[in-house]
């Protein structure tokens, strides 16, 4: 199945051009007691046409990172406490709410983990896609519906004319995720945030959806931040990988480098927990496979947050937070002992 160039490339972007430059993001939840720091001093960049994978166990702050970029952190309670996010020469975190609405679904679009519940059950598929076009491009409704149809074709939806008038409950999970992708790409975003887009789908459908995302990315040049806890997905999709632990970046490298020479004990643990890199779904991580628990976000230790679970933890590790350092070209890691060989 091949797709004609159904959708136009992202305009005004050069190959390799920086799309997003995030620095020092801190996202907190406040309640009674000390704030829970869901994302802590996180920085990264994404370039045009690039796929950055963010990996980490459940609860490490992946979704909050993505929602922070849209400024849709759950309220009340959640807030972006620090950071800058430069996109198109502006800092997202200082935009007014109307400016931010233009960014959401326009420059940055997001697809979610739960295709079954992420579409509105009482509105037709066509209307939900067309609505996005309408609010961003202010064109007549008929044009929006035409775009919706074109997008359904672009995501290889079977019988797109009929689907346009159907409701989400009439579609399978895989088809709903196609609709989410169609909706997300309808306004040619510069950046697509995909938060575990295949986790809820069965394995064959997962592979189809990942293929689709990659094909559409090649056509449009959209930068993609793909969030996953599946190293199989990472191996398949990523250009670059960012490993998160307890709200922090602990390692970042180009994909081959990371798989060939993981430096952080946590990353090594994740890889050891993965039976083989046989493909999508083969590398489902389960928390139990790295013994120990993540420290509470409200009560982070002084030193390395991984110390309680780390076989190499020393007094130094417990005393002070290891800084992120570039151990090899383009390969960042936050670990006091990452320079030593893993067997030492």
């Amino acid at each position, binding site marked *: 199945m091949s797709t004609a160039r159904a959708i136009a490339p992202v305009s005004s972007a050069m190959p390799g051009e920086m799309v997003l430059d995030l620095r020092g993001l801190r996202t907190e939840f406040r309640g009674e007691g000390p704030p829970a720091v869901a994302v802590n001093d996180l920085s990264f960049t994404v370039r045009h046409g690039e796929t950055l994978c963010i990996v980490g166990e459940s609860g490490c702050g992946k979704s909050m990172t993505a929602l922070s970029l849209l400024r849709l952190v759950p309220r009340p309670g959640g807030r972006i406490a620090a950071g800058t996010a430069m996109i198109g020469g502006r800092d997202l975190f200082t935009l007014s709410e109307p400016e931010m609405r233009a960014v*959401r679904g326009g420059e940055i679009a997001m697809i979610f983990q739960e295709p079954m519940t992420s579409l509105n059950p009482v509105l037709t598929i066509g209307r939900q896609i067309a609505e996005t076009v309408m*609010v961003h491009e202010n064109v007549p409704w008929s044009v929006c519906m035409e775009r919706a149809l074109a997008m359904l074709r672009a995501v290889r939806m079977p019988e797109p004319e009929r689907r346009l008038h159907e409701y989400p409950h009439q579609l399978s999970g895989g088809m709903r995720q196609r609709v989410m992708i169609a909706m997300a790409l309808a306004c040619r975003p510069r950046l697509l945030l995909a938060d575990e887009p295949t986790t809820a789908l069965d394995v064959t459908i997962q592979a189809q959806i990942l293929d689709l995302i990659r094909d559409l990315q090649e056509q449009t040049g959209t930068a993609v931040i793909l969030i996953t806890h599946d190293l199989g997905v990472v191996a398949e999709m990523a250009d670059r990988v960012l490993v998160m632990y307890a709200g922090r970046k602990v390692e970042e490298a180009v994909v081959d480098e990371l798989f060939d020479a993981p430096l952080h004990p946590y990353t090594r643990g994740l890889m050891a927990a993965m039976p083989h890199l046989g493909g999508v779904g083969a590398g489902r991580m389960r928390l139990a496979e790295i013994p120990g628990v993540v420290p509470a976000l409200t009560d982070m230790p002084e030193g390395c947050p991984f110390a309680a679970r780390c076989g190499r933890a020393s007094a130094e590790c417990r005393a002070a937070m290891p800084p992120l350092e570039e151990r090899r070209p383009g390969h960042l890691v936050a670990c006091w002992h990452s320079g030593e060989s893993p067997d030492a």
Partner: protein
Amino acid sequence: MGPYILRRVLATIPVMGVVAVIVFLMLRLSPGDPAAILAGDQATMADIAAIRERLGLDQPLLHQFVVWVGELLTGDLGKSIYLNRPVTGLILERVEPTLALSISTMIFAILFAVPMGVVAAWRAGSWVDQTIMGLSVLAFSVPVFLIGYGLVIGFALRLDLLPVQGFVSLWDNPVGFARHLVLPTMTLGLVYMALLARITRATMLDVLNEDFIRTARAKGLAEPRVLILHALKNASVPIVTTIGLGIALLIGGVVVTESVFAIPGIGRLTIEAVLQRDYPVIQGVILAVAGVYVLVNLAIDLTYSALDPRIRF
């Protein structure tokens, strides 16, 4: 859809049948001689005998029932004992005020309650939410007649802005009609508004936590569109159900409100009939009210599928 509507319409027949049986037995099974009850306190033996014969009360029960239902089906609800006039006519004369009051109450309640509930849910926990919910508890816990007398004293007696009592037909004087309805509508509507606002808030709170609301915001939609098109449409089935149930509550409230404001409607007719033990009128009113209630619920059921495409019959 067509067969469903037909089935739902047919399903109202047994319901009305049961109501008819109960209403029929209400008189026949009450202690004492029905003819004596119908004849009233001042009747002579001859009057009672005449009534017994006229109504066929000396016939077997089943025979009486068949005759009675046959008359009902031709729109004949019998004759009032006191006024000696057909009950159907008496009810029709009193329909306008009651209908006007009920409809204006519903409109008033919905118009205020739904936006209040939506805003309260949207800003859940804020002072706006707390104020709205506080007021609704208050409106809910104060008896209807107290609200009524309070409004009368404030708006009608002290400020002299609105008429104290009575009713004017829409056809005679539209302005007078509206002015006479304001206070009764507020009296009757406040409780109902409180109920509806609470249900709207609770339902909206659930819906606003749904994933598709986050999707709507992630698409860049403005809040009014998120709240009304995406959230309220999903919350509409429980809200409309409450509106339907509220009509049952309204029926009790109408009786009280009509007496407080001396409105010559069905409620007043009912009270008069009960005080005079005018059984044919009581029976007629019960049948008419039950009929309206069944029809309203039928209409509500039929709107569900228009509101939510997952509901198909």
